[in-house]
């Protein structure tokens, strides 16, 4: 037979060919801005025999600043991971666990700066906790001179970071858990005489951790490079490396900008090193775990300890965030509120009345940008996942790493470079350019929230629809999308929240002309005005929280007669 090509088993349509390219397009969208921005940042550092880098390396505060970044980043990530696992391992799926699940949405929605300011007002010597017990219990007529905030050890910052990281890791864990067959594995371990916790650690954790690895790296990178929280809670003599970079950037003599670029380059190296060391520690931990499993780890006592500790820590951190936010809320309606009064002397709506018009105006624009970025991200992610299913593509570890690229490379290291690129292209200063920049950060989160439920969808639905003659598009629209309504809405809520919280991309790509809730809130928080920060912090929380509430409420209505059909996140 002449070498006539065999007909392909499933002829691919034009749309199908386009779909097949979706993963490549997505990768390009993530890699190109990061690479271009990084290049723009690093290139000036290498000028003049790397003079800026030498200046940074000889700065006498560098060792301490680096140590602080590593210490607060690693400890908070480790702490948040342990608490998350404790909660998941010890609470099973009882009532307490479901309550924590419900608290998750608002906790995720609290912006970092608002969380930090709320926490600061709570634990400062002149804070709410001290006011509640003064002077009747403490005798304090004025606040004691205690170094609680901005402590040189960075403990207040570590605490604040943990409070924000636990909800995120918990969300990621809940998304990954269904694929670990956790309940049966724990049951099996228990039937062999192991305690719940030991069963979880030996039976579930290895599979679970493999899925959590990249989110953990993202958390680690974020914690090591955070700026707003570091300024509010962290030490200042010297501050963390990331905060020092911003101080250099703000140096009026303009020469500080080269130092900032050199510092950012160092920061990237530091984060990558920390991730490598973390990876090595994983290997050690994995060895130890295997040895413990072989030794027959049962630890029934651990259950009795783990449950109360998990409960206390889980609800403790939720309590911290909520009371901090409540404190800020109270400040937003406070008139005069002096120490040691537990509540304001006078209440007034002045703050809200003043902020009202700006709040309304910036809320509209914030939502529009978030909606565009999220819908674009959702379309790309769905296209990638559908392409993966239809063409049996397998996403490699590289693909996943690329997904995390914008989360692992510190924003401050590539955004200034991206800004000058967009200036040269003449595309900045408009709201859609800002939305495009947000897409880079929204896309990974949408993908992470949606990938697991999409991949774990029972393949028999697909087969059944195909055997009834459904074409791929119809299958996707009438079967897959409705089944995945809840995870899709959750992914959208996460995407909205991420977009709403973006500061640097909005400021740098928007040229100051695109004013969102967050750019307004950060500009205002430079004035440390608790009343206004209270108002903006609440608004910033309520907007994404409304998204999460919709993501919970809509499926409940849609699926009220079809409980069994719903794919859970």
């Amino acid at each position: 037979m002449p070498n006539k090509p065999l007909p392909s088993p499933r002829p691919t349509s034009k749309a199908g060919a386009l779909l097949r390219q979706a993963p490549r397009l997505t990768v390009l969208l993530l890699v190109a801005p990061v690479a271009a921005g990084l290049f723009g940042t690093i290139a000036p550092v290498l000028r003049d025999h790397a003079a800026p880098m030498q200046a940074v390396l000889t700065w006498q505060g560098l060792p301490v600043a680096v140590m602080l970044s590593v210490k607060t980043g690693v400890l908070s990530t480790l702490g948040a991971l342990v608490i998350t696992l404790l909660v998941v391992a010890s609470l099973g799926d009882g009532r307490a666990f479901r309550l924590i699940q419900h608290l998750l949405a608002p906790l995720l929605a609290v912006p970092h700066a608002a969380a930090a300011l709320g926490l600061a007002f709570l634990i400062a010597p002149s804070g709410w906790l001290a006011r509640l017990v003064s002077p009747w219990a403490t005798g304090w007529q004025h606040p004691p001179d205690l170094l609680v905030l901005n402590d040189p050890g960075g403990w207040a910052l570590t605490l604040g970071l943990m409070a924000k990281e636990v909800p995120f890791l918990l969300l990621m864990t809940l998304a990954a858990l269904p694929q670990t067959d956790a309940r049966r594995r724990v049951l099996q371990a228990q039937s062999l005489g192991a305690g719940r916790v030991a069963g979880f650690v030996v039976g579930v954790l290895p599979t679970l951790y493999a899925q959590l690895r990249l989110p953990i790296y993202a958390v680690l990178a974020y914690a090591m490079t955070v700026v707003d929280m570091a300024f509010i809670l962290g030490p200042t003599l010297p501050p963390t490396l990331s905060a020092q970079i911003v101080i250099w950037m703000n140096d009026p003599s303009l020469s500080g900008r080269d130092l900032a670029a050199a510092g950012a380059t160092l920061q990237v190296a530091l984060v990558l090193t920390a991730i490598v060391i973390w990876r090595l520690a994983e290997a050690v931990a994995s060895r130890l775990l295997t040895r413990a499993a072989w030794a027959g780890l049962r630890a029934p006592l651990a259950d009795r300890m783990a449950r109360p500790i998990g409960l206390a820590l889980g609800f403790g951190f939720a309590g911290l965030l909520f009371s901090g936010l409540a404190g800020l809320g109270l400040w937003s309606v406070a008139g005069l509120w002096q120490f040691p009064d537990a509540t304001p002397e006078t209440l007034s709506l002045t703050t809200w009345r003043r902020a009202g018009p700006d709040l309304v105006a910036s809320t509209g624009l914030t939502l529009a940008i978030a909606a565009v970025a999220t819908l674009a991200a959702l379309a790309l992610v769905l296209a990638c996942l559908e392409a993966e299913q239809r063409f049996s593509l397998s996403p490699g570890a590289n693909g996943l790493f690329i997904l995390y690229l914008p989360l692992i490379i510190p924003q401050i290291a590539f955004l200034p470079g991206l800004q000058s690129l967009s200036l040269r292209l003449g595309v900045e200063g408009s709201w859609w350019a800002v939305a495009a920049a947000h897409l880079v950060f929204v896309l990974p989160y949408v993908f992470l929230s949606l990938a697991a439920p999409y991949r774990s969808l029972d393949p028999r639905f697909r087969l059944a629809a195909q055997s009834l003659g459904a074409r791929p598009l119809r299958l996707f629209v009438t079967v897959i999308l409705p089944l995945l309504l809840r995870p899709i809405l959750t992914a959208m809520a996460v995407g909205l929240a991420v977009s709403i919280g973006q500061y640097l991309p909005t400021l740098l790509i928007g040229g100051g002309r695109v004013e969102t809730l967050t750019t307004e809130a950060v500009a205002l928080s430079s004035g440390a005005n608790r009343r206004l920060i209270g108002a903006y912090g609440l608004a910033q929380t309520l907007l994404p929280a409304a998204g999460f509430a919709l993501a919970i409420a809509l499926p409940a209505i849609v699926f009220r007669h079809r409980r069994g059909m719903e794919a859970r996140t």
Partner: protein
Amino acid sequence: MNRRHFLVAGALAATALTALPPSALLAQSPDWQTVLAEAKGQTVYWHAWGGDPKINDFIAWVGDQAQDRYGVALTHVKLASTADAVARVLAEKEAGITTGGAVDLIWINGENFAAMKAQGLLQGPFAESLPNWNLVDVAGKPAVVTDFTLPTEGFESPWAMAQLVFEYDSARLPTPPQSLEALQQWIIANPGRFTYPQPPDYLGTTFLKQLAYGTLADPAVLQKPVDDASYAQTVAPMWAWLDAVTPHLWRAGKAYPQNEPALGQLLADSEIDIGFAFNPGRASAEIAAGTLPDTMRTFTLAGGTIGNASFVAIPFNAAHSAGARVIANLLLDPQVQARAQDPGVLGFQTVLNVAALPAEDRARFEALDLGIATLPPEAMGPALLEPHASWMIRIGQDWVERYGVAQ
């Protein structure tokens, strides 16, 4: 202009001179009319620090005035730091954007101005051709034409005067220490009740400059660039003063507030007993807003405190340069200046020569109740000129080396 027109204009000018103040005359000049015509319909993007709701409200009010009077729209781009706007213009210059830039007007002074001027990032001179320039008190307030000893040469236009004043709650502290020696003794006797914003924050550095004025053998050297050879010996008394108080500062000098608002919050929270601000009207304004108790008072130090001016400047590539000049001129309008000085609004000191204003405008200032915590002008004491910018840089760096890496 032909001869006949010239005569008409001259006759008009002659009659106008008797009836109108010089600013009003200039406002009718053909040059300025051209600027106004060009500005009409423009939207001016004013990049200004957005951390104080009172200032934000004031800028919004100025925007309303600009719209009503000249048809110019004003958008306040709220910044967390002035350096953001400077960086923005620099990034545009590096990207080759020489027209249509995003920044039309910047609230600026001191080092930021020096840096932008040196890099050729500013447009000018424009300030001295503004019609309202004649009202500015150049003789009485030399800081309006010298920014940190650098002559402004018309590249920025002043809009507010600031002077360092100390703030305290008279209910907690009946008699505050009013000299540097007394302050030093008071800090040592009352540990943990005083601090200053961490340099290189501008208010923290201003406090250091105030110390330099009060402790240096010959403060006149501050008006010249730093002399490397004698520097260490010259400033030794200043560091001695600080070394003596540092262990007795708030948090024993192991943490410092970040900026002026953070310092103000510490005073409001009773964490400290004496604060300070670069705005003599701040305490009264906060009392008026109901956020500080009405027992707050202010004082200055014997021998005077540092004073300077706030300016606006126009970047070299501003898209709406005419509109920006209209706003700069509007900011010098007596009605606008009087509003800024009202403690219920801002409490900023005016840059105008109030005594020389027409009666109607003078009355606007005389009608102001400066507020219970604001010192009357005669009690303010002399405003000391800002030292040469090189002092600020050098002292700031040294501070970081001495105290900034405490661990």
